[in-house]
């Protein structure tokens, strides 16, 4: 075991001391010093298991995964938060998954539509109300292309049959009515919500869309929620390479696009965690190959573009090289501008999805080093993909608690932390520069050639803001 690994393990052990015994034993399995070679047997974390009660996990729930990530960003479908009012209220417009269209007329992305369960619905069941609600929605929003029913905790607990309601209604509606059993108590995090939602895409929408003609260059962009327009920046590069993006899941997505992705020649998956399920299904059922890519920062963009091109003919391969040639000077200029002020700065990342591993390259392009990384709801395969990306001895933290994050920040002294809104302001109080890496802190895009300059600018404004130096620290 190397020194770097030993040193980090010591830090981890110190942090764990505050826990009661049982919880300490459990949390110890989720924290590890990184070993990029994979040789150190204790340098792996356990993941995708229940959070301990009472420790302030950062995680959300299955509903959050299904609503915020998979079905919410499908713009021309009405997403109904079926149950009490809160879940829909808190997830209303919070993800910034951008879309084009007229909200409330032909698109419904930033609307909060709920059956608003009352006590009588708990006692007598909500199925009748749901049936009536669907009819009202049909009447008020005639241009909807589908309805998704996302069930909240009580719906599952009282045993409502939303599948039957959907099935009944679908006959008259002429578009998919999708029951999504994403009650918040299911599973251990958002992650199960992704899986459940993927299964409903498979069962209710996939294969049912219309595509006039196919070309050998048809691809689908899967698992990009278009936060701050990310998917559009990605799409632009793919189209410049000569590929035809026939479906964009699930940011600025339409029901029809969900229905035609199986006609792709290749599925390009960005957020592996939330949508690998459906890619695997399309591979098995329709023989569509899939590949992961990473459009954060020039190094990974170049690699990814070449990897994607390798699935196609020479024309695409040449285009990929031309694209790199065209944008390399722009990327170099961004690095030249921002590297001097960001070089050697240390970053701690704790986010959902894939960002801890995907953004490492972008930070490195700017001369920064990621000293700790972890996922809210990663699985073993996410961590396997992460270990090799990180330096030896970096802290890996699965389902970190607010307490652990604070303590690691004290000990590792990062120059900035990238995490979510719940973590943001405690770091502000600690005087640690912070960037929200779920929502890009209302900025973006961060993907692609158009996104990297924004990313670099934002990291610079975070780390180098003069406001941090105004804090009169207590001695």
């Amino acid at each position, binding site marked *: 075991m190397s020194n770097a690994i030993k040193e980090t393990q010591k830090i981890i052990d110190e942090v764990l001391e*505050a*826990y009661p015994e049982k*919880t300490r034993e459990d949390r110890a399995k989720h924290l590890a010093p990184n070993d990029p070679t994979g040789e150190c047997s204790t340098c792996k974390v356990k993941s995708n298991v229940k959070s*301990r*009660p*009472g420790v*302030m*996990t950062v995680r*959300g*729930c*299955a*509903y959050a995964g299904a609503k915020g990530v998979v079905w919410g960003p499908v713009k021309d479908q009405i997403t109904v938060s079926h149950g009490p*009012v*809160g*879940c829909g209220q*808190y997830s209303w*417009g*919070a993800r910034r998954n951008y879309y084009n269209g007229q909200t*409330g007329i*032909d698109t419904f992305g930033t*609307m*909060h*539509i*709920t*059956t608003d369960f*009352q006590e009588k*619905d708990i006692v007598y069941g909500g199925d009748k109300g749901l049936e009536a*609600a669907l009819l009202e929605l049909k*009447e*008020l929003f*005639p*241009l909807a292309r589908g309805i998704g029913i996302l069930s909240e*905790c*009580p719906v*599952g607990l009282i045993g409502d049959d939303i599948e039957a309601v959907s099935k009944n209604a679908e006959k008259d509606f002429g578009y998919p009515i999708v029951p999504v059993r994403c009650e*918040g*108590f299911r*599973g251990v995090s958002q992650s199960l919500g992704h899986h459940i939602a993927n299964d409903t895409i498979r069962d209710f929408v996939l294969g049912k869309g219309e595509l*006039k003609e196919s070309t050998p260059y048809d691809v689908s962009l899967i698992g990009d929620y278009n936060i701050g*327009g990310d998917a559009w920046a990605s*799409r*632009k590069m793919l189209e410049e390479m000569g590929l035809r993006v026939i479906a964009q899941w699930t940011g600025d997505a*339409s*029901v*029809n696009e969900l229905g*035609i992705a199986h006609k792709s020649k290749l599925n390009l998956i960005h957020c592996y965690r939330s949508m690998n399920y459906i890619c695997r299904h399309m591979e098995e059922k329709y023989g569509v190959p899939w590949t992961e890519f990473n459009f954060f920062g020039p190094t990974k963009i170049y690699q990814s573009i070449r990897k994607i091109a390798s699935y196609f003919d020479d024309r695409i391969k040449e285009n990929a090289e031309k694209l790199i040639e065209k944008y390399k000077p722009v990327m170099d*200029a961004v690095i030249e501008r921002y590297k001097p002020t960001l070089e050697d700065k240390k970053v701690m990342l704790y986010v959902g999805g894939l960002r801890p591993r995907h953004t490492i390259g972008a930070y490195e392009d700017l001369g920064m080093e990621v000293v700790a990384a972890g996922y809210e709801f990663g699985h073993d395969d996410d961590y396997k993909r992460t270990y090799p990306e990180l330096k030896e001895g970096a802290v890996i933290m699965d389902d970190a608690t607010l*307490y652990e994050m*604070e303590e690691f920040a004290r000990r590792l002294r990062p120059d900035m932390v990238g995490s979510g809104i719940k973590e943001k*302001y*405690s770091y*502000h*109080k*600690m005087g640690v520069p912070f960037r929200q890496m779920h929502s890009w802190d209302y*900025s973006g895009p961060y993907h692609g050639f158009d996104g990297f*300059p*924004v990313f670099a600018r934002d990291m610079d404004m975070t780390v180098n803001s003069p406001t941090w130096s105004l*804090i*009169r*620290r207590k001695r």
Partner: protein
Amino acid sequence: MKRIKIKDHNELFQEKEYLEQFEKKKEFENPWPAEKVREVAEWTKTEEYQEKNFARKNIKINPVKACQPLGAIFCASGFEGTMPFVQGAQGCVAYFRSHLNRHFKEPMAAISTSMTEDAAVFGGLNNMLEGLRNSYALYNPKMLAVCTTCMAEVIGDDLNAYIRQAKDKDIIPRDLPVPFAHTPSFVGSHITGYDNMMKGILTTITEGKKGEPNGKINIIPGFDTYTGNYREVKRLLGIMGVDFTLLSDVSDVFDSPNTGEYKMYPGGTPLEEAADSVNATATIALQKYSTVKTMKYIEKEWGQEALVLPPMGVKNTDRFFDEISRITGKPVPQEIEDERGRAVDAMIDSHPYVHGKRFALTGDPDILLGLISFILEMGGLPAHIVCTNGDKRFAAAANALLSESPFGQEATVYTGKDMWHLRSLMFTDPVDILIGNSYAKFLWRDTGTPLVRIGFPIFDRHHLHRYPVIGYQGVLNMVNWIVNTVLDEMDRKTMNTTSFDVIR
């Protein structure tokens, strides 16, 4: 350093190549013909659509309310060293924390017991016991304030029994106050949750504390998300020399100074003081609908005078001071009288830009009553008043208030309705100004009505919550925001006309 031009989403996606990309993407979207979209968009502005819209019974579209536990944990945060502890599925707490973080731009601590499928089958006792043990050990609270989510309510978790067990088994100290409130999200809204938790905390913390009168008055702010209001109450009562206890004081919790150190419990009502509240002369609530049960409890159990005195607008603020003066025997000092004079002066100076202007209002019941009162005082005309979480009593109170003024005659009060109903109203019967929370910006966009942001949540403007909307300073702030919004709009509309005036 070489300057480089960085374009982010605000500019990038207006560029030609992106606009072309969007156009091309439509091929795969199966979009409706533009003509059809226009037609339906126009139809949604009609009386016919409004009728259909108001006929719906089973679905809410853009409602103006959140759920009980949010109010409960907000209330709990306002007590010294208190950790809000939520028995239920964990996603809810992530949502509550995010929601409050986004409004205040402040950290917010709360615990979940992370109940999953097994708890659904066997009940949440084990989660509660382990959750209490972990959170007590890790976060060292002086009080754990427990409330429920839908899940714990549906499966019927018995908080009282669970907490007793935790103490019997020495999982947490026997003398640790652990108040609780049942806060199902399918009953009431965030204001109900605030009420339930306040009652729960006061019941627990004052138990056995009845003693000599302490000569103080209690102030209960209610579900009030203006930290400026809390500071304002403290300032004003300080000027008056009144000895008081603010019950749930979130001012430092959601507006703490940056010292380079994160404190999990940065302030709140001292528990000892809160416990002594049972011995006060009177309790004054600054909101009615978020303190109904609490005030009933105080009046009945504590035998105190329990008054609701919401100080929003001039007359309400006058009444607030008159009553405090009556209860405490202390006169209203000249300093406060001068503030009143300045607020009234501002209203008179600005009245021409508000007089006769029609308003659409949406928000929580207490905020709405305050706004109605203020607007009537300015000569404005409340027109559409939409209160998703208002009940019959609220409607009666609002209508009574409106009927007292010649300026209130155009108004209609809608309870249980949402912002999609309001959208219809604003198309069929347009208004000049809209007042609501950040989500009302969708109505601003759709109808072009200028929006003044007052209420909760306010996510898209910074620091508004730091300014009071109560007291005479609150009057000044409301005058400022409303009049200057009217003037901004006037400038925008007259930009290229002869009426583009520099002095107004």
